[in-house]
């Protein structure tokens, strides 16, 4: 009874007890958002071999990766070194007067810096040590102080880890800088497509298939330990190729055949926990979605037509309860949603001529997809009931014609979407914020990249 009374009292207490009856309240509304000015001098080399060019290079690489990460976070604008009032090579990493040779906060306040990063590194043999302090200048407080150690070859991971730590320290949320992207790559003129892994920024490419065939549509497991993909493998007995589904375990490099039924075995999407997945099979004629056990042996149909319609590209919601997919059951490919057991199918997109490649945001509130209405594809987002449709891309090719922007996939923190675009001629990978701003190219080569998928958090 006491508990009940206490509950009633708690529930009846206003959320903001400081608001008194009769108070005149003014709701100021949403604030304008702006980037913070950051002063980030390059890390000081404190090694003993001052003239070692390789060591200097490591520091420059480390700095370049961090600056790129922090730029893409969209939190900061960097102050040019010419504006600095202190010689950062001559003052210490800690503030005066605690450190007699330390920097002065006033020097940074004067130029409007909100954050100051002071860092140093040393290389001993093959070991890299990176010490860094991040100060919030207006409050003269340390936001982050860390010392990272590792092999010199791991400088990229060290840089990404620091960027993640800073995002976490400021926002309380995880950063996406240690995540990776997988995509299929093809060299123009060569029909062979292979699957690659790369860091989120397009660096550190790693080839994970050597089928010398067409390998495509890679997908991450929800735990990020393996990748499912489809390859046109040669079946010796039948003397023919078939689009079979493979799993690849990243840590061990182990690969195994999961589904090789006649026809399509493609478009895998994992349920949370990776105990089950959905794939597209065409063993019965038309392409339909099936739920499979982890070994791929047992499959249960989720869609069937109607009228031999195609049902493909399953995307499972983060909670595993719903499945978005594309289907041409209404005449043209459109995005549909159904329950995980195949029930309650409803159409989400009514606009456009061709909508495909649905992708869930990590919070499960938004779907991105590629849509076409005027002869080219663009990336769109919408709520999961089909409302609030927004176009994120509208780039053109050098000849002035609209470019195709396709195959969206969300970063694990939901702050970016990777997609392919042929705006430069070849299919390259780009990222964009979910509001359509901050578009950036992340691959710069002559290959064609297709069907990128962003990993879950990998740290």
């Amino acid at each position, binding site marked *: 009874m006491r508990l009940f009374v206490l509950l009633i009292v708690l529930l009846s207490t206003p959320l903001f007890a400081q608001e008194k009856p009769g108070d005149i*309240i*003014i709701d*100021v*509304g949403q604030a304008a*958002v*702006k980037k913070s000015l950051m002063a980030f001098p390059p890390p000081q080399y404190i090694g003993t071999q001052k003239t070692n060019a390789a060591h200097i290079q490591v520091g420059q690489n480390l700095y370049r990766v961090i600056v790129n990460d922090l730029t893409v976070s969209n939190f900061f604008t960097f102050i040019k070194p010419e504006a600095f009032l202190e010689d950062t090579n001559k003052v210490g990493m800690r503030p005066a007067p605690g450190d007699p040779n330390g920097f002065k906060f006033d020097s940074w306040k004067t130029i409007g810096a909100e954050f100051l990063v002071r860092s140093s590194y040393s290389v001993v043999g093959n070991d890299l040590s990176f010490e860094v302090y991040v100060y919030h200048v207006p409050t003269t407080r340390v936001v982050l102080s860390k010392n990272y150690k590792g092999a010199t070859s791991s400088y990229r991971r060290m840089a990404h880890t620091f960027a993640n730590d800073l995002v976490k320290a400021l926002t309380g*949320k995880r950063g996406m800088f240690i995540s990776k992207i997988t995509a299929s790559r093809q060299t123009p003129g060569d029909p062979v497509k292979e699957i690659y892994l790369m860091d989120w920024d397009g660096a550190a490419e790693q080839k994970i298939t050597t089928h010398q065939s067409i390998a495509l549509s890679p997908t991450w497991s929800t735990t990020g330990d393996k990748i499912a993909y489809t390859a046109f493998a040669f079946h010796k007995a039948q003397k023919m190729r078939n689009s079979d589904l493979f799993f690849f375990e990243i840590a061990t490099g182990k690969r195994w055949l999961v589904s090789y039924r006649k026809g399509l075995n493609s478009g895998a999407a994992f349920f949370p926990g990776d105990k089950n997945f959905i794939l597209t099979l065409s063993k019965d004629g038309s392409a339909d979605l099936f739920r499979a056990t982890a070994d791929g042996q047992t499959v249960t149909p989720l869609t069937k037509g109607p009228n031999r319609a195609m049902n493909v590209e399953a995307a499972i919601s983060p909670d595993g309860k719903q499945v978005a997919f594309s289907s041409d059951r209404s005449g043209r490919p459109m995005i549909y949603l159904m329950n995980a057991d195949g029930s309650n199918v409803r159409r989400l997109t009514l606009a456009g001529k061709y909508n495909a490649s649905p992708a869930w945001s990590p919070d499960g509130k938004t779907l991105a997809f590629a*849509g076409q*209405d005027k002869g080219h594809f663009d990336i769109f987002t919408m709520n999961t009931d089909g409302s609030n449709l927004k176009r994120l891309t509208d780039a053109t090719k050098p000849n002035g014609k609209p470019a195709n922007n396709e195959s969206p996939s969300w970063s694990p923190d939901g702050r970016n979407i990777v997609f392919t675009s042929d705006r430069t001629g070849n299919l390259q990978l780009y990222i964009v914020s979910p509001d359509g701003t901050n578009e950036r190219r992340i691959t710069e080569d002559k290959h064609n990249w297709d069907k990128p998928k962003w990993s879950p958090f990998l740290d």
Partner: protein
Amino acid sequence: MTDSFSRAIWISVLGHGIVVTLIFLRAVVMPVEPFEIKNAIRVDIVGLPEKAAEFPTEPAKPVAKPEVKEVKPVPPTPKPEVKADVPTVPDKTKKKDLSKSQQKAMEKLKAMSALEKIKQDLKREKDAKAETSKVVKGNQVSEGDSPTGMERLDFDRYLSEVRATVAQHNSVPQWLADGGYRTIIRVFIDERGFIVKKVIEGPSGNEVFDAKAIEAVEASSPLPPPPQRLRARAASIGLLFRFPQ
């Protein structure tokens, strides 16, 4: 001529007979292909939206001035005898750009304001009498002190201007934007509109967010001078500002 004509007729009849016989035989002997009827297919071809030219980062601008026609509070209908005594109010604030209906509404409001004044005078007299007679009224509902009529218009206009002024100076860093923070600040304003004191009554839990809200308030001083009736309250009790809302 006749023979050749009748021969042609016979040939024609024979030919038609053969064609009809063939059609008949085909219908009887050869199987009919099934005619499949499918459901109608709905095809929607609707244009997808264009990319927004600019994505809003600024706070929504408040309505600068509430329109006269939107004023809803209507005081109780005055008694006929009082109505007869309503003095005509000279229309000093008449603007040329007001539409006819707005003008009428303004006149009505002014008339009601005058009525209120009379009512208040009557009430004061009544209260004075009551004070002298020392009668305790007891369980009666207060008539309240909410502004009405022209006073309400001034009041709303003032709050709207204050909100717009503070919103202009309200900005937060991007890294705080998605934090879901909320701060409440009580602000004391003197009769000239200068902010004389501010107190964080509902801290957000984030020092920087609170500081940004305080900065926005400080940068907004001086605010527009409060209306006459609000002056004492703005200076002694203050106004509550909610960031963001």
